[in-house]
């Protein structure tokens, strides 16, 4: 579903992502972990089409992000680490706007909005302006908007930040549901316990370079993910 081949992205003289290669199959939840500034967000933004990149290739469901960005964007959904949404819209208007952008038929959009808003306990707040939402409510709205077009690939940057325990639990459930239906999820997180329990695969990045990637069992072996992560990122430091 997602293939990243030799991705390199520089900001001025600094290599934010350095020759990164990884692939994610349909049905997989893939955790992307690393210290602050390791290059996680930059990688995700390159895949989402927000940032251009210097070299390499990114394919979403076989389609090149560079050659055919609009086709890729139709297949993916992105939730940033800080969900800045349109403050001047109400929650429902924002969701309807996203549904319009993805050309979702009326019946489907109404059903999906109802389903996900109920699951995330946001239904009664949908008439409120986004400006009045808390961080967690904005995060919930961003999650619903990302699910409206049932994306084939979901990119999440720190999705659990700001969510209450109930909503975090629901999100994990939704992530698994989506992947069971054939989609894939690539997400960054610092909550290693969640990654360990939820993900099929994991990649660890340090200084823009991929340190290790593979199935969760392969990467962590008998240790905890936290131990492996600390070991790997502290090597040669």
């Amino acid at each position, binding site marked *: 579903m997602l293939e990243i081949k030799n991705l390199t992205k*520089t*900001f*001025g003289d600094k290599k934010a992502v350095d020759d990164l290669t990884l692939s994610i199959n349909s049905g997989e939840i893939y955790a992307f972990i690393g210290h602050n500034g390791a290059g996680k967000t930059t990688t995700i933004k390159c895949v*989402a*089409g*927000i*940032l*251009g990149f210097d070299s390499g290739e990114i394919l979403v469901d076989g389609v090149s992000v560079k050659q055919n960005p*609009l*086709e890729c*964007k*139709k297949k*993916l*959904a*992105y939730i*940033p680490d*800080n969900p*800045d*949404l*349109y403050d*001047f*819209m109400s*929650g*429902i*208007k924002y969701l*309807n*706007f*996203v*549904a*319009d*952008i*993805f*050309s979702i*038929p*009326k019946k489907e*959009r*109404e059903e999906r*909005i*109802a389903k996900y808003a109920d699951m995330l306990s946001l*239904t*009664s*707040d*949908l*008439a*409120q302006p986004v400006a*009045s939402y808390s961080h967690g409510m904005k995060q919930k709205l961003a999650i619903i908007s990302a699910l409206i077009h049932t994306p084939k690939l979901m990119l999440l940057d720190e999705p659990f930040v700001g969510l209450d325990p109930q909503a975090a639990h629901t999100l994990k459930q939704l992530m698994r549901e989506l992947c069971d239906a054939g989609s894939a999820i690539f997400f960054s997180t610092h909550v290693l316990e969640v990654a360990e329990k939820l993900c099929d695969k994991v990649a660890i990045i340090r200084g823009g370079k991929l340190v290790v990637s593979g199935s969760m069992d392969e990467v962590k072996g008998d240790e905890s993910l936290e131990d492996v992560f600390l070991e790997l990122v502290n090597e040669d430091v």
Partner: protein
Amino acid sequence: MKMFKALFISRLQSMWFSLFASNRLKTGGGNKKSPGKKVLVGILAVYILGTFGVMFIGIFSQFAAAFGNSEYAWLYFSFAGMFAFLLSVVGSVFMTQKQLFEAKDNELLLSMPIPSSYIVASRMLMLLCVNLMYTMLVIVPAMLTFGVKVGFSAKTLIFSIIGIVLMPLLSMAVECLFAWLIALIGTKIKKKNAASMVLYIVFFGAYMWFFMRLENNIATLITNGTQIGEAIGKYMPPLYAFGVSSASGDIVRLGELALWCIVPFALMYFAISKSFIKISTSSKTQDRKVYVRTSLEVTSPRKALLKKELSRFFSLPMYMLNSGLGAVMAPAIFILALFKREELMQSLVAGADVSAYLPFVPIAIIAFCVSTLCTSAPSLSLEGKNFWVLKTSPVSAGDVFYAKIMTNIVIGLPPMVLASVIGGIAFTLTPLQTVLTVVFTAFMQILVAVVGFIFNLHFPKFEWLNETLVIKQSIPVILTMFGSMALAAAAIVISVLLYSSPKFNFSVDAGLAVCCAFFAILDAVAYAYLKTAGVKVYDRLNG
């Protein structure tokens, strides 16, 4: 002191970045501004300063001739002070309110060990710099005129300069009072945006009324100088003190001026410092609406983007007032012309005989109003931290361009076409001339929308603390307004010259057609640029 200095510098930087910095530096191309852009900004600055300078030198030359060498020389400076005061207040009253109470870093700063009085002081000092700029825009040309026509002694020159430094304190105190009242009202009422808008329209209306009547009233002011002088002395003591101290170097009056300026400023500073935390952290009074499921309207992606742009426009009073006021102004001016054309002409051309060029007057008025109708100029910057939504959506650059440019056209064109038709009737144009005026309006509105967006593509600013900064003061807005005004002036002047020159034997219709053709060509060039280079620039933007 170090803490205060850091706060003050951060405010100045914020203002500077809102004017000159752009987010293109995040595209990886380095953060150096190209020489071309520096030249462009330089030309713009010279053009704006030149326009204001010429206008005020023209006005003050008349005052200097009347009062310069008389016992009422002080009145000259009092008028200069009055103009400077009005320009400062109208120019920055709402910026004061936004900067003091609605800056996005309020909570961050309040969470730090910084006394609220320091936060207020640093912001007031930054705003004082803005007021000083406005004051200098008026008083420096006034002083130059006085220097040339009458002359300064060393003492009066020094006192005048001290006056320039003091006067912004007074305008700042009045602005702070209004800002404080608006903010206080905002904590009590639900329709805060509507209240702000009404107040701004009142302010702007008063300002326009004053300047529209100014040309007419200069003669009246000059004729009745003695009585006006007495009234100023009696009812406007700061202006009187400024006038006398600048004209005659009276140190007692200078002391009075200092008191009139410093005391209200200090009082406002203490009042705002006391209530700053309460006002800036008060939660908005709003009724909580509970969502009830309703049928959702389905539209195309392009229409959805257009609706989004319109929603943003109508949700921000500052946006409506700064980028959409021309849509109200033009029909209002022409409706006034239907009934009082002669008086309007007196105000506009200060008694000059332009009867031979009357058919060109409507397009001149329209050109001025259309140039202020530039919602597209800040529209990309207004995406701010939401830019990721567009960048990750399956919409092309063309779709985004369409929405932002079409919003400008939808907001501007209908009232401007209506205004053109009313203008045609008011100025007794022939049907063909009216049609040409309408065509000119359409071409110019399209150009303002397209060029405004192109400027924003080249000078985007996504990281702002308050949207007012990008709406009111950003480079794209200033370039679009003054640039389109200059282009329209050039087109009209060329047409009038062709019309009035016996060598060319141009008719009015042909002259108007030249204006239309000029803008049609510019439209085509701008559109072609947007479709090619514009798309590439957009694709490189990161937000």
